């Protein structure tokens, strides 16, 4: 049964063509000399140099990176805490409310999250800007981090942690020197997920951003709404390149880590 029949080959080819051709066209036409995105007029990199000279885009990129970095770090810390509480915390008062508050943001439409946070910021008189976007992004991405980390936490043996405590570690020491190294891959992928979600968010940021804090997606959206633009193609190409590079390297690193772990385990087995 495990064989490449013609049906499987065709469905995979068509499926991946559907997924990748639009992005390929986008990339190819970012090197187009013409201002008309859909008409090829020779090779040129002028849209890239224009992009790098466009201060509005550069500013927006900085705001986006700053928001993404801070919010994903905060979300990783809070999300890991949540995962630890949910998996190891046992019973506590208000646990069911807590767990529904973790899962609700995952299914909440972005328009509602954005609207509700904006109404909160206005009612407490907080000026909208970079800080409010960070608060908003931390809130929804910490829930994603907690899902990623809890699945890893739930799958490892509690007795290792208990052994560390029996041997004289405090709960925090046991977490830092035993639990954290084991769940580290999940924490890192949680951080990456939070960072990507923040970089990608248009809707929530549009609600909670102020006039001086335009993020890249807001800038892209307002330019794209007016029609196609070769500068946006160039920007998209850069973003796709960064993401592809990131995903490829992280998958290679994790593959190597798994191999090394296997080798070490075999070594330990032989020695033991």
């Amino acid at each position, binding site marked *: *049964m495990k064989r*490449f029949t013609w*049906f*499987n080959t065709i*469905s*995979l080819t068509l*499926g991946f063509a*559907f*997924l*990748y051709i*639009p*992005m390929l*066209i*986008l990339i190819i*036409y970012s090197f187009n000399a013409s201002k008309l*995105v*859909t*008409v090829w007029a020779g090779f040129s990199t002028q849209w890239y140099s224009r992009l790098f000279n466009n201060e509005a885009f550069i500013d927006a990129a900085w705001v986006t990176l700053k928001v993404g970095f801070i919010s994903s770090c905060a979300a990783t810390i*809070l999300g890991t*805490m949540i995962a630890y*509480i949910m998996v190891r*915390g046992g019973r*506590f008062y208000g646990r069911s409310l*807590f767990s529904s*508050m973790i899962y*609700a943001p995952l*299914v*909440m*439409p*972005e*328009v*509602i999250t954005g*609207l*509700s*946070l904006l*109404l*909160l910021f*206005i009612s407490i008189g907080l000026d909208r800007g970079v800080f409010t976007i960070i608060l*908003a992004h931390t*809130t929804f991405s*910490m829930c994603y981090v907690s899902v990623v980390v809890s699945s890893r936490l739930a799958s490892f043996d509690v007795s290792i942690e208990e052994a560390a405590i029996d041997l004289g570690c405090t709960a925090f020491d046991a977490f830092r020197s035993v639990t954290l190294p084991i769940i580290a891959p999940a924490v890192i992928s949680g951080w990456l997920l939070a960072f990507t979600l923040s*970089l*990608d968010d*248009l*809707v929530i940021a549009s609600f909670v951003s102020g006039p001086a804090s335009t993020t890249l*997606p807001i800038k*892209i*959206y307002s330019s*794209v*709404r007016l029609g*196609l633009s070769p500068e946006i*193609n160039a920007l*998209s190409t850069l*973003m*796709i390149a960064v*993401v*592809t590079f*990131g*995903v490829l390297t992280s*998958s290679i690193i994790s593959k190597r880590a798994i191999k090394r772990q296997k080798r070490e385990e075999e070594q330990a087995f032989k020695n033991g």
Partner: protein
Amino acid sequence: MNFRKYLFILIPYSWLVALFLVPFIIVVKMSLSDGVMAIPPYTPYLTLTEGWAGITNFFTNLDFENFIFLTEDNLYWIAYLSSLKIAAISTVITLLVGYPIAYGMANASNEWRPTLIMLVILPFWTSFLIRIYSWMGILSQEGFLNQFLLWLGIIDQPLTLLNTNIAVYIGIVYTYLPFMILPIYASLEKLDLSLLEAAKDLGCNRTQSFWLVTVPLSKAGIIAGCFLVFIPVIGEFVIPSLLGGADTLMIGTILWQEFFANRDWPVASAVAVILLLILMVPIILFQRSEQKQREAE
């Protein structure tokens, strides 16, 4: 020890209460308030300085006016129904497109599978906005699809695709496809191949064994994939606003317009509350089916 444990719990707990629960309560409260021409454009305020009189005054000012307004104006009903319709149709199309891909992946050789999985996940990491934008160039009047079809001689007039519901469907299928493929692939991968051999021995041909064995055994993946597409599409904003046209009515864009263009915050809040009530149904059904699945395993 216990005190420390509660302190540890208190940090994320209070964060979620302050930035998720409280904002949500504010939306519900806002949906019961009256719109006025001011900034912020609504009354009533809860003023605690007035004491009990302020509180009673606050509650007597709340009413269901905005909800009554929503039921009286056909636009909102049509928008809710049309969101559900678009979500349902695009879920079915995504299933029809995604199932063969997941099937092909599950039947691929072991050395190919990790690469194929990565190829499905990779678009998920790329910006949603960029993926939608890439279709604007393909579907526009002078776009690549029209150029291609004209060149083939299938059509002699360019088709109007961008800013129609067709473009919205294509955009949804394109962006949500990984959410459909991955759960179906996960359930197909677990499939016990000896069952297919047994079906063959019992006289099934390949089509029969596909419909009688493979499809029922991948039901869990199909259900999960469908909910993962259906639920977020109902409240979708970016796809209808960039690819849709004047006749594309989706509740996400209506909410956005009420808020940003009409500046009617109470009505926008009422739209949000009803949208959440509608979403509760598929979300609860999804949770139930997941729970059943876990119990079965």
